[in-house]
């Protein structure tokens, strides 16, 4: 099927479930494991990722299709994407700092982390490789961010409960057990396959 004819809404749901950027593409694992110890900061980071990916996806689509392709500079894509993401997070951080201290404390502190979050960068690379249209790239950015936030919130919830109630083998504590839980979550998400498919 022609990828450009898929409805953006389908892409949005597929990005959350069957093509979850964390559970099927393993992107954004570093901050996922480091932050998921605590539900509150996981949610903060999750919201920040949704926000940034929703905006950087269409911005980078514009940069790629309206700037790089016409001038034949596709090979510079990585540098341009990184600069767009870094500049965007920097500007948003400054705006948030001015507008609301509360929002800055909950969301702003995560923004510098996001510049090098592979989920954001990977999402941009996917939308170029899969040749999405502009609307589809907005939907994909939003969906990928939401899927990531969902996964990190779920893992944080499980980890906080587990710490109180269960005994974990000493060698598996920390990242080891988190990886196993994520694996089980990824298996559960395979249950979604067949509902929607985008690649």
């Amino acid at each position, binding site marked *: 099927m022609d990828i450009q004819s898929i409805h953006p809404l389908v892409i949005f749901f597929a990005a959350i479930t069957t093509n979850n950027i964390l559970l099927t593409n393993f992107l*954004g694992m570093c901050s996922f494991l480091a932050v998921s110890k605590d539900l509150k900061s996981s949610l903060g980071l999750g919201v920040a990722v949704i926000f940034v990916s929703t905006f950087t996806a269409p911005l980078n689509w514009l940069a790629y299709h309206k700037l790089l392709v016409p001038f034949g500079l596709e090979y510079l894509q990585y540098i341009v994407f*990184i600069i767009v993401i870094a500049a965007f997070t920097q500007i948003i951080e400054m705006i948030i700092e001015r507008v609301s201290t509360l929002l800055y404390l909950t969301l702003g502190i995560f923004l510098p982390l996001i510049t090098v979050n592979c989920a954001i960068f990977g999402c941009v690379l996917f939308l170029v490789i899969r040749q999405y249209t502009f609307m589809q790239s907005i939907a994909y950015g939003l969906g990928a961010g939401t899927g990531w936030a969902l996964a990190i919130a779920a893992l944080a919830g499980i980890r906080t409960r587990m710490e109180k109630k269960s005994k974990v083998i000493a060698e598996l504590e920390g*990242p080891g057990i988190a990886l196993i839980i994520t694996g089980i979550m990824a298996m559960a998400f395979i249950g979604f396959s067949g509902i929607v498919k985008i690649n």
Partner: protein
Amino acid sequence: MSAGPVKGVAALKRMLWEENPVIGQILGICSALAVTNLVKNTLVMCLGLIFTLMMSCFTVSLLRNVIPRQVRMIIQVLVIAAYVIVIKIILDAYLPEISNELGPYVGLIITNCIVMGRTEGYAMNNKPGDAILDGIGAGIGYSLVLLPISMIREPLGLGTFFGMQLLPPDWTKWNMMVIAPSGFFALATFIWFVKAFKASEGKR
């Protein structure tokens, strides 16, 4: 890094085992999970990462006295991105199929935390010679984790090794091993073994 300035070959060696970036610091596991279902792709990825680490550590170390403190992160990312573009162009030219299969993961070397971790944590404060060794060490340490995992996943999942038939054709393929969840399980098990081994070594 809490340890004092480590120089020369010692900088390379510690990355292989004691401070292995994947096992010890849990860095760079995005690609560790994604590419390890085929040995060939893993090998290409490892070589790419070793090259990027080596060159960007060297470059950042050379520039360390010129880079203003406030913008050092973005400069580091740009240096890394430049080398990754080189890798991408080489792969596209000589190994187009692999480049296609790896898809976005070649580009994702840029956001691989190992590279940023080494340039920020070591190359910014050390001489170019040491920085190169440190970079190579981190790259090899990464490969030492990825290659064994891929060597388990590919034969069990597809019955092949490096694309060649390894197990008899009537081998029941463990489809599980090449899809996403097993990546998590394989890495977790690997970390478990290494930590258990380290613990038993410590007791002796």
